[in-house]
């Protein structure tokens, strides 16, 4: 018997609509303290709205949630004192310098001017932004902006941090830096709710993942459990000539059992857990005179996770939920 650690977030049946569209449609979440909890889903699935409700920026239409033991509606002020939000749009002021941004937040959180300045300096150094501290944020690169954004969220260390798509649009090096920061934060005891559209990112960082689609949680578990549900690896093939895709799909379906057509008209993939089978399948494509631009054996893409879990692809949906429900069955 182990004692259950307390829950940092406990949400039941959260609903939030904007006019006709229901962005969040009955979300349940249980997030353990001290963990990274990934919320995975495509654009418009309701991730950002869920975060905004939990961070007390939006009132839920129905359902309830407790964040760090406080009700998000009745005790919103108490919640705000314990959490911090790093929004999808960089939540820093572009017209101020990095240093001014952090000092401003320090002052707003109750630090005296001198303490706010000292704290800003400390964070800028820790996040590798000391040299750019006097530059206006609008001249920062995407990676620098993200780091400043996260620094701004820990001017006063929060118990719980909401991170909304922290690496969308970042180059791989900046992404790794952000991941390192997140790992350090968690190691120091902060709980993180991480929204992402990348399975890869959730896999790297999260202890548990909720897959969300059209405002509801459609699967929940550890990264391992989720991947097991879709087959742990996949063979991805890129064709030189998109016209050959039907032929390639036939071959892969025969070799691998099933095939998935990617959004890119020259790309397709199929479940495949061992390298020999992959090599064989690629050889078969060659024999069928399909010209291949490249191939790789890797994790299933979010598209495939979605296809496996929902039967439809993770089609881009608009954030206000006006999702056109293309039940596009591949293959």
């Amino acid at each position, binding site marked *: 018997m182990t004692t259950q650690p307390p829950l940092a977030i406990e949400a039941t049946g959260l609903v939030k609509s904007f006019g006709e569209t229901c962005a969040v449609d009955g979300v349940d979440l249980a997030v353990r303290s001290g963990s990274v909890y990934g919320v995975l889903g495509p654009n418009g699935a309701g991730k950002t709205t869920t975060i905004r409700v939990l961070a007390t920026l939006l009132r839920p239409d129905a359902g309830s949630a407790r964040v760090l033991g406080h009700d998000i509606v009745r005790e919103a002020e108490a919640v705000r004192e314990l959490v911090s939000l790093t929004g999808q749009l960089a939540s820093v002021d572009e017209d*101020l310098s990095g240093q001014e941004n952090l000092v401003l937040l320090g002052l707003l959180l109750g630090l005296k001017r001198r303490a706010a300045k000292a704290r800003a300096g400390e964070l800028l150094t*820790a996040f590798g932004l000391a040299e750019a501290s006097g530059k206006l944020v609008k001249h920062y690169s995407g990676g620098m902006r993200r780091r400043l954004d996260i620094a701004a969220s820990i001017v006063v260390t929060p118990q719980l941090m909401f991170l909304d798509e922290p690496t969308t649009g970042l180059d791989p*090096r900046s992404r790794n*830096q952000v991941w390192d920061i997140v790992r350090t934060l968690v190691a120091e005891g902060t709980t993180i709710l991480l929204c992402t559209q990348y399975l890869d990112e959730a896999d*790297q960082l999260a202890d548990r993942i909720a897959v969300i689609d059209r405002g509801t949680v459609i699967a929940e578990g550890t990264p391992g459990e989720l991947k097991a549900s879709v087959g742990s690896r996949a063979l991805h093939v890129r064709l030189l000539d998109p016209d050959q895709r039907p032929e390639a799909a036939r071959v892969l379906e025969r070799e691998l059992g099933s095939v998935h057509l990617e*959004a890119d008209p020259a790309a397709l993939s199929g479940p495949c857990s061992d390298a020999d089978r992959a090599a064989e399948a690629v050889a078969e494509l060659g024999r069928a005179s399909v010209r291949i631009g490249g191939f790789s054996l890797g994790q299933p893409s979010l598209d495939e996770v979605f296809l496996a879990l929902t039967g439809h692809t993770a089609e881009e949906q608009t954030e206000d939920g006006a999702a056109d429900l293309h039940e596009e069955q591949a293959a």
Partner: protein
Amino acid sequence: MSTRTSHAQTSTPAAGEETAALRRALASTPRPPRASAVQATLAFGWRGMLKVKHVPEQLLDVTITPVMFVLMFTYLFGGAIAGSTGEYLDYILPGVLVMSILFTTVYSGVALNTDLTKGVVDRFRSLPVWRPAPLVGALLGDAARYLVGGTVIVVLGLALGFRPGAGIGGVLAAMALVIVFAFGLSWVFTTLGLLLRSPSAVMNAGFMGIFPLTFLSNVFVEPETLPAGLRAFVDVNPISILATASRGLMHGNADPTEIVIVLATAAALTAIFAPLTTRLYRRG
């Protein structure tokens, strides 16, 4: 959807140092007591000032335009309206002060609307601070801009021969009165700024209101020659009363009743539109 086959974690020595610095940074933050309403408001006011510092072009609106108005109206219409440019300057200078500061209040709404399109507002709204602080603070920052604009107008006026009977004290009192009224009026435009979709929509709607309201006042001409209906409107227009009160303060013949009416109007606008703005801002 791209495919990643490996997750090479490249940890350079520098990254290691940063991680150590990050750990230190995370370890050293006792939570300070919550910022007071005044503290938070001043911090937001400071933000407004920093924006002026970094984007000084913002000050062009409050400096160049009134200079143009003073020169144009004085020399183009002064002789025709008041008989001489000198005499007209005494009449119009307090009026231009009122007009240009009130025109600038529209920008409070535009700036708020622009802010909303950026993620930083989400952060402000998720902070445990006094709710109206971001709004009141921004308006305090704007008041500093009004002061700059007002000073430019008065100095220009003095250079052109404007001689206020009540001296510097009268001029300062008039400027203070106009700024207090502008603070009240700003709330109307911040409400608009939260209701309309784009900064240019706020700008258009704002000027559609403030432009006729300013011209249908006694800012430029004495209302005696106006048709009866229009004159009745001009006489009760709060902007007329503000302009008359400012002239009175500058020339030393102010009517206390008018000053009270101006202050009451500002208080009423604040009482109605400040809570409305705050509510809309919270709602998000």
